[in-house]
């Protein structure tokens, strides 16, 4: 990669007692990109972000943030990063303006600069008219915009967002991502964790985490192309029992019903997957039973990548 790295880690690990929350994660995140951590709850996304922001010390491994070793330089680096926590972490019994003014003072903004920046942020994050509203009384989307305003108030070079959209509706989510791309355009590197596939798909780079281990790393397109499985969709009747039969085969990584279709992932170790699957479907239907079924090969999506990487489809519960 040509761009300098905003974050690089080697063997980053963290244990809590006997539990390994993050296990030997290597990261290389280029400056100016939006990078995503994708994974289910408890996969180590938050722990990783907390280590990268210096809130938790890694049990092992090296972390470089914005070109400097994190250990020992936390205070210096903290002036250059912004962090939006998973849980709303501003003061609920302060107003929008009071919260922002507090953050501005903490970052040492003079009176004039503060007034200017606050006006700018209120405008940018659509909070004009709500200056005197208590943060605790706002909706999920409004709180999220306020939190983003506070996290970006001091023009951070690197922004950490821990599941920023978990409490907002889809429309607000789309709008929120527009704002992230605006920030990215201005040169901010963004690291965002999510368990939504559609959000992950918007990232420039992506790491899929499962139980503390990085299962895959790359751009969403790369991940889909390099996927170690072929994706088929089966249309027809009685898909529930067909699913039960197919999921037992070791070559089938996942079978999930999506509307009136069954989405099946067949591992690349099968040389002629389409023919193989047709044979297996007929076998499952039993001889002599004539049920019309159509099988076609489809383009993989990120969810397929996720399922292939994590082996979650085996249990039939896809995140």
């Amino acid at each position, binding site marked *: 990669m040509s761009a300098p790295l905003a974050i690089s880690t080697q063997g980053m690990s963290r244990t809590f007692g006997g539990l390994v929350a993050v296990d030997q994660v290597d990261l290389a995140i280029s400056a100016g990109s939006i990078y995503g951590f994708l994974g289910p709850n408890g996969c180590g996304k938050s722990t990783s972000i*907390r280590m990268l*922001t*210096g*809130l*938790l*010390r890694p049990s092992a491994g090296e972390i470089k943030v914005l070109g400097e070793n994190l250990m020992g330089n*936390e*205070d210096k680096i*903290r*002036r250059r*990063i*912004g*962090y939006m*926590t998973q*849980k*709303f*972490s*501003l*003061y*609920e*019994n*302060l107003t929008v303006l*009071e919260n922002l*003014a*507090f*953050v501005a*003072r*903490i*970052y*040492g903004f003079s009176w004039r600069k503060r007034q200017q920046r606050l006006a700018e942020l209120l405008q940018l994050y659509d909070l004009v008219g709500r200056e005197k509203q*208590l943060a605790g009384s706002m909706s999920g989307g409004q709180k999220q915009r306020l939190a983003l305003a*506070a996290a970006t108030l001091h023009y951070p070079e690197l922004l950490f967002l821990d599941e920023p959209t978990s409490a907002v509706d889809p429309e607000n989510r789309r709008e929120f991502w527009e704002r992230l791309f605006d920030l990215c355009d201005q040169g901010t590197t963004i690291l965002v964790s999510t368990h939504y596939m559609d959000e992950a798909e918007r990232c420039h780079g992506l790491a899929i985490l499962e139980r503390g281990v990085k299962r895959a790393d790359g751009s969403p397109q790369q991940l889909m192309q390099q996927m170690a499985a072929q994706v088929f969709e089966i249309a027809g009747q009685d898909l529930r029992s067909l699913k039960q039969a197919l999921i037992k085969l070791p070559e089938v990584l996942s079978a999930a019903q999506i509307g009136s279709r069954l989405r099946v992932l067949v591992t690349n170790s099968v040389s002629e997957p389409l023919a193989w699957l047709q044979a297996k479907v007929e076998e499952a239907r039993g001889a002599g039973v004539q049920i019309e079924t159509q099988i076609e090969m489809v383009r993989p999506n990120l969810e397929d990548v996720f399922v292939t990487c994590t082996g979650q489809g085996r249990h039939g519960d896809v995140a």
Partner: protein
Amino acid sequence: MLLRIFAVVVKELRQLSRDRMTFGMIVMIPLVQLMLFGYAINTDARHLPAGVVNLSASAYAPRLVNAVQASQVVDFKRNYANVMEAEAALTRGEVKAVLYIPPDFAERLLRFPNQGQAELPISAQPLARPVAQWLVDGSDTVVAATIKSLRQMPLNEVLDRPVSATVASLEVVQYFNPEQRSVVNIVPGLLGVILTMTMVMFTSAAIVREREQGNMEFLITTPIRPIELMLGKILPYVVVGLVQVSIILGAGHVLFDVPFRGGLDSMALASMLFICASLTLGLVISTIAKTQLQSMQLTIFVLLPSILLSGFMFPYEAMPVAAQWIAEALPATHFMRMSRAIVLRDAQVMELSFDALWLLGFTLVGLVVASLRFAKRLD
């Protein structure tokens, strides 16, 4: 640095002003406690329920009972036929004391020195015995001491004799609280107790609350330094503490006529030192406790000895040496000494420099400890 401390101060004041309950408590706790302690605590016991066992047929016996009743120390409620019944009544808690008048009461009374026959042969004097006996529920030392004070009750009235004034062997001149009202001593002491309670409580929850409500995770990724956060958390409550001091001393003066002899400047300085010491103590607690409940428990842990060992309830000098050491470690003890000296004895802070310096040292050490203990980390 100053801007960041200021930011925290402004934030704390805003939050405090939104918290009406706490705001009300700042005023109500001192007022209510002052009334409670001022009116309720009284070490001079009066009107204790008592009984009589009268085995004497003498006409003097009822006169003795009347004389004791007239002292107002006890109210005779019951008569018991014998000592066993009286003891059972004590056990039941029906009465606190029983006056036992023996069958030979009249004889004893007449042989009593200076009371009975004017001249008793020298040889008979050692035979003089107390005329009657008190059976007392001694579990409460205040009750016991009050009844004991009746031991020297003059018997003139019983015998209709003129008072033969006896000369005390030692005379006592009482300075500073001549009327012996306990409230005069309680109000300045109450300052220490109430300030310990509110000040330690406010700050002991301060850091923990931010942690529990999730604010800390954001706060520690900002460039704020621990000492700035600590100072910012303390400063608003110094003002709160001074308001409480004014309420207690003002109301104490108006309601209980507690004199205010010392200088206001001395009092303000002493209070300020104590408030700061208590607030830092709370901060240290706050860096130890993981939840608000734990911080509350630790506050009570500090509060109880501050009430019982600081000299507020019992004289410091009467405690065993080990307890005095513990008391010395508590800021409340030092403040109690200073506030009583200033309010009641017109002492200057300068004359109390040991206690003043101790509180100052406690504050500084506490601030350093709290800042060091507060790592900007989650683990």
